[in-house]
C-alpha cells in the first residue's frame, strides 16, 4: 500500500508557480521571433531579423564588454575574498569572527540600489576618493572613475565578495586542520602548507564560487546602469534601452534570451569540471 498524503495539494501550487515562470520565459522566446512595429507594443509577423541584428559590431562589442567585465570581476573577487574567508574560518577570537561575518555579509542584504549609490559617492569627481586625494595633495585634478569600466568593476567586485566569501569559507572550513598541522610538523613552511595542502583542498569551493560570480556578473544591471552611466554598456543595459526606453519589445526579448543562454551556458560548461574536482578532493 502506498499512501501519499497531501501529494496533490502540495504539488499543485508548485506546478502553478513553475507554469507562470515558464509562461513568462515562453513569451520572451515568442517575442524574440516577432518583428517590431514602431509605435506599437504589439509585435508583428514572424522574423529572424532580431537575431540577425545581434551580429552588428556595436552589439558584439557590448557582448565582449560584458564578458571582459565579468571575467575581471570574477578574478578580483576571488583574489580579495580568499584571505577574508580564511580569516573568517581560522580566527581564534570569537568577537573577531563575529565582526568579520557582519562586515563581510551586510553588503549582501542592503540591496543593489543602496550599494550602487554608495559607490557613486565614493568614485564621483567630487566624491570621497577624489576629495581625499586632492586634500592630501596627491592629485591636482579629479580622477575619472565614475562612468568607466574601472569604476564598474570596482563596484561589482564589492557586491560579489559576500557570496564568494561564504562559498570559500564553507570550503575552507571543510579542510581538516590536522592535514595542515601534519604538513607543518613534517617541516613544510607556512607558504608551502598553503600552496600544497589548503589551496588544492579548497579548489571545489573556488570553482563553484567562480562559476556563480561569473554568471551573476554577466546579468548585473544597476551597477553598469548607474556607475557606467551609459558610457559602459553591458547586455542588461541594452535590454533596458531597447525594452523600456525604445519599447522595441522583440529586440529586447532577443537580447534577454541571449543573456539567459550565456548565463545558463557558462554554468553548464563549468559545472562538470566542478563536479570532477569535488570527487577528486573529497575524502574516500
Amino acid at each position, binding site marked *: 500500500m502506498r*499512501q*501519499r498524503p*497531501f*501529494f496533490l495539494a*502540495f*504539488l499543485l*501550487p*508548485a506546478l502553478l*508557480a*513553475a507554469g507562470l*515562470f515558464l509562461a*513568462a*520565459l515562453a*513569451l*520572451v522566446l515568442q517575442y524574440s521571433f516577432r518583428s517590431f512595429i514602431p509605435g506599437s*507594443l504589439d509585435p508583428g509577423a514572424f522574423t529572424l531579423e532580431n537575431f540577425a541584428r545581434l551580429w552588428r559590431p556595436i552589439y558584439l562589442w557590448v557582448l565582449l564588454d560584458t564578458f571582459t567585465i565579468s571575467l575581471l570581476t570574477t578574478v578580483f573577487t576571488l583574489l580579495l575574498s580568499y*584571505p577574508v574567508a580564511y*580569516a573568517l574560518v*581560522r580566527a581564534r577570537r570569537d568577537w573577531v569572527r563575529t565582526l568579520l561575518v*557582519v562586515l563581510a*555579509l*551586510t553588503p549582501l*542584504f*542592503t*540591496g*543593489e*540600489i*543602496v550599494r550602487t*549609490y*554608495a*559607490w557613486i559617492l*565614493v568614485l*564621483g569627481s*567630487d*566624491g570621497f576618493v577624489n576629495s581625499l586625494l586632492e*586634500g592630501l595633495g596627491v592629485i591636482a585634478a579629479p580622477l575619472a572613475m565614475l562612468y568607466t569600466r574601472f569604476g564598474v568593476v570596482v563596484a561589482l567586485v*564589492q557586491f560579489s*565578495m559576500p557570496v564568494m566569501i*561564504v562559498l570559500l569559507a*564553507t570550503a*575552507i*572550513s571543510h579542510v581538516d*586542520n590536522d592535514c595542515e598541522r601534519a604538513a607543518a610538523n613534517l617541516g613544510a613552511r*607556512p607558504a608551502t602548507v598553503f600552496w600544497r595542502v589548503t589551496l588544492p583542498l579548497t579548489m571545489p569551493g573556488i570553482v563553484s564560487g567562480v562559476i556563480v560570480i561569473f*554568471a551573476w556578473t*554577466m*546579468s548585473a*544591471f544597476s551597477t553598469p546602469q548607474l556607475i557606467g552611466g551609459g558610457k559602459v554598456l553591458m547586455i*542588461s543595459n541594452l535590454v533596458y534601452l531597447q525594452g*523600456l526606453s525604445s519599447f522595441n*519589445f522583440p529586440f*529586447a*526579448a532577443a537580447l*534577454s*534570451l541571449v*543573456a*539567459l543562454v550565456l*548565463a*545558463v551556458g557558462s*554554468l553548464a560548461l563549468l559545472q562538470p569540471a566542478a563536479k570532477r574536482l569535488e570527487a577528486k578532493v573529497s575524502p574516500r
Partner: protein
Amino acid sequence: MSPIFAARLRAALFWGPVGLILLYMTIPALVVVMTSFSPSELLEFPPAGLSLRWYARALSYPDFRNGFANGLIVTTFASTAALAVGSAFAYLVDRYSFRGRAALEAVLSSPLIVPHFTTGFGFLLLGAELGLTRSYAIVIAAHVLLVLPFVVRSVYVSLKNIDPRLERAAANLGASPGRVLARVTLPLLLPGMAGGWLIAAILSLTEFTASLYVTEARTQTLPVAMYGYIREYSDPTIAAISALLIIATTLLMLLANRYLGLRRILAIDAH
C-alpha cells in the same frame, strides 16, 4: 630571525591586507552615512557640519513613502506565498519520488540563474498578456518566483534534520497524517520556515532589476523609486534613506548572528 618574530610578521602580513580588504568592502557604507548628515546640497568631504534635513526630506518624499508602502504589500504577499508554496514543495521533494520531480526542481530553482531582467521582462509580457500590467498581482508573482529557491532550500534543510522516528511514533499512536503534519512536522519545521521567510522578505524588499520591469508609477517599490530619484536629483536624500537601510540591515545581521548563529546557518564554522 627568532621564530616568535617570524610568526608575528606573518600574522601582520596576513591581517594587514585582510583589514584593507574589509575597509574596501565597508567604505561605501561609511561614506553614505557620512554624506547623509551633510548640510550641503553638493557633495563635499568632509561635510561642513551636521544636519538632519535629508532625513526629513527622505521621510516625507511622497514617492519614497508610496514605494515603502508598496514594498510592504508586495513583500508580505510574496514572501508568505513563497513560504506556503516552497514549504509544500520541499516536503514533496524530501518525502516522495514522482515523475517529473527533477524537472520541476530545475524549473523552480532556475530563477537563481536566469538574469533578473529576463525574468522581469518575461513577467512584464505575461502581465500584458493577462491584462495585469497595472496590478500588484504581477509584481507579487514575479517576486514569489525570485525568492522561492531560498525558501525551498531553507525548509528542505530543516526537513532533512527531522528525526523520522518522531513522525512514525505519532502515526503509530494513531494520529492521522494531517495531525502528524500539524502537531509534529510543522512545529519542528518552524525555525527553517522562519529563516526562509526572513531571507525571502529581505530579498523581496530590496529587489530592483525585475521590479523595474514589472512595476509602474502606482505600484513601484522603494528601490525603483530610489532609482528614479538618483536619475533626477543629486542631493543626499538617497544617502539618508540608504543610511537608514544600512543601519537596519546591520542590526538585523547582528541579531541574526546572536540568535540564529549566522556561521552555523552558512555552515562555515570550523570543525
